[in-house]
């Protein structure tokens, strides 16, 4: 029972980070119908920015600064490479983001160097005892960040003018334009928000172990999360992210014991198995809207 609870807590902790990343993907998808493969690079860039800033200004100030910086980068990417591609097939735009991802990561890797960079978080691997269970503090921090950011996003989309404008332009761009909404700026805002979310997620991916040149792969685990949740549902992305975290955590704890023939580190690829299973049963994910097709 103790093992199960610890597994669940770890799963929810990492799941929160995946959920943050997944929300970034979904915000971009809702605004421009594209899956941005540049998110891994932005996440890595955010983590590295935090690792440099944490020394002089401290971790808690470094995260928002890095988030704003990476948000500006995301905004710049949208303006320079995505805006000219409006009206072109989404696949082409997705491949552009793939190219951007490769290019940005080369630059970021220069700043990482060959070793692991510590992001300077105050938690490390230290634990706190809750009801007799040794819970790692960083998992609590991750969950808290997800709740705070999630609540902030909910309030933003529900109550602010810009949130309303973004929802309108994702619903129908032409109608939104007719109502006087600057759809282009809303798309740029979406990319900036996704960049900021990626940077925050990156900082928390780095807690405990730090970041190195291969950390970017973690951001791709948000892809199963968004597909499971449905590409256009922010709530679905959160659920998907947590689900991916849980599945991964359970495989990490129990697969070696019960399914040893799957090989070591199977937990790292288990999200993709979950993805295949969910898609075979529900091709539009758990919460996604089914596309209506007309000839």
């Amino acid at each position, binding site marked *: 029972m103790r093992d199960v609870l610890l597994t669940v807590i770890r799963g929810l902790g990492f799941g929160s980070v995946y959920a943050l990343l997944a929300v970034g993907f979904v915000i971009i998808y809702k605004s421009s119908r594209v899956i941005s493969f540049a998110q891994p690079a932005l996440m890595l860039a955010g983590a590295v920015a935090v690792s440099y800033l944490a020394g002089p200004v401290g971790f808690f100030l470094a995260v928002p600064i890095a988030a704003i910086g990476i948000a500006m980068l995301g905004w710049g990417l949208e303006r320079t490479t995505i805006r000219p591609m409006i009206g072109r097939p989404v696949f082409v735009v*997705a491949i552009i983001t*793939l*190219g951007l991802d490769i290019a940005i990561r080369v630059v970021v890797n220069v700043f990482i160097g060959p070793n692991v960079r510590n992001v300077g978080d105050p938690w490390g691997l230290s634990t706190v005892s809750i009801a007799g269970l040794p819970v790692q503090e960083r998992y609590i921090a991750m969950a808290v960040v997800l709740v705070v950011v999630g609540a902030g996003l909910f309030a933003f989309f529900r109550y602010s003018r810009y949130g309303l404008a973004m929802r309108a332009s994702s619903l129908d761009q032409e109608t939104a334009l007719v109502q006087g909404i600057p759809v282009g700026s809303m798309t740029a805002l979406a990319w900036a928000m996704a960049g900021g979310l990626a940077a925050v997620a990156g900082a928390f991916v780095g807690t405990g172990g730090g970041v190195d040149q291969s950390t970017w792969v973690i951001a791709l685990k948000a892809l199963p999360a968004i597909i499971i949740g449905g*590409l256009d549902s922010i709530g679905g992305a959160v659920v998907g992210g947590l689900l991916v975290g849980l599945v991964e955590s359970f495989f990490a704890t129990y697969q070696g014991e019960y399914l040893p023939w799957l090989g070591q580190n*199977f937990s790292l690829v288990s999200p993709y198995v979950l993805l295949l299973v969910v898609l075979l049963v529900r091709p539009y994910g758990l919460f996604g809207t089914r596309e209506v097709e007309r000839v």
Partner: protein
Amino acid sequence: MTAVRESADPSSVPEAKGRRPWGRPQLYTAYGQDMALLNTGAKKVSVGVLLVVALLLPFLLEDDLLRLLATGSVLAIGAIGLNLVTGYAGQVSLGHAFFLGVGAYTAAVVSGDPEDDQVWGLGITFLPVWLLAGGLVAALVGLVIAPLASRLRGLYLAIVTLGLVFLGTHVFNEWDAVTGGIGVGRPAADPVLFGVDLSRRTEAFSADQQLYLLMTVLLVAFALLGRNIARSAIGRSFAAVRDRDIAAEVTGVDVRKVKRRAFVISGFYAGCAGALLYSITGYLDPSSFGLLVSVQFVAMVLIGGVSTISGSILGAFFIALLPRLTRELPEYLPFLSSSATQTPNVFQVETLLYGLLIVAFLLLEPRGLFGLWVRIRNYWKAWPFSY
């Protein structure tokens, strides 16, 4: 320039194709003429010249360049496969590396040494056998994947195939009996043809000359096959599904069958390419089938030209020769280092170029190198007029 197919005996020409009139290169009198493999005189001449040059190259170039060109030919086979499924049939696949790996390992197992107690081997080193085996097993995997493609569309499919690469890498890493395991690897398939090991020096030719000739011949065969697939009914059904799958279905195209065919054909090409690619280096490591390989193939297709066979070949050679070009850079840009441990180094520039070239081509010339060629051709066709 005339584009007349002269035939001494008119009765040997099929009636349906008809004869092309003299001196009117742009006039087609039958559909068959328009759809012919080499439908203009210029194409006939240039393809002929290219083939002659390709056959002469091994006697003109250094061995290391030949090896690079041989690799380029193999990559071109893989790129044609990806172009058939992604360019012609419109099914986005980021899983090409996985198919490549399946082909490479099947071929390695078929050709492997049965005495070896570390990894499996059947000991059949005859090239056509392991080549076909690699291609067919990868095609079979394509057949298994295809039902997913017929349920999913667009980016959903891209992500599923991306997941496939991760799952594939995991399997390759863990299945020691086939792959040798992480960091160990295994010998790849031996290119043995009629008792001659082409990867070893013989009396008449060096190893690289033999490999180059082998890969060139295979590339011509695969390109011809690809072109014929593209211009036949299968290719037209691919294009119909790509352009509007519902409309295709309404006009009587069996969409699921077409998608299945596309993945099987693409898998076959990728499997063959994977099998051949590592017979050049002679060694394969389970970590060499990651996402970057898939991205490189996507880059080849996009840089070369979507839905063109010649574009795929151009793109593949471009990507194959790019490392060689960046290796030359430190001579001109002294701040670049050729050592991997210093920054900035040529390997970083190379990777950066992959990324930036994909972005640049998609933004500026979506039709790729093939599109550039079309622009140049049209300019000179109309010269001295601007249109």
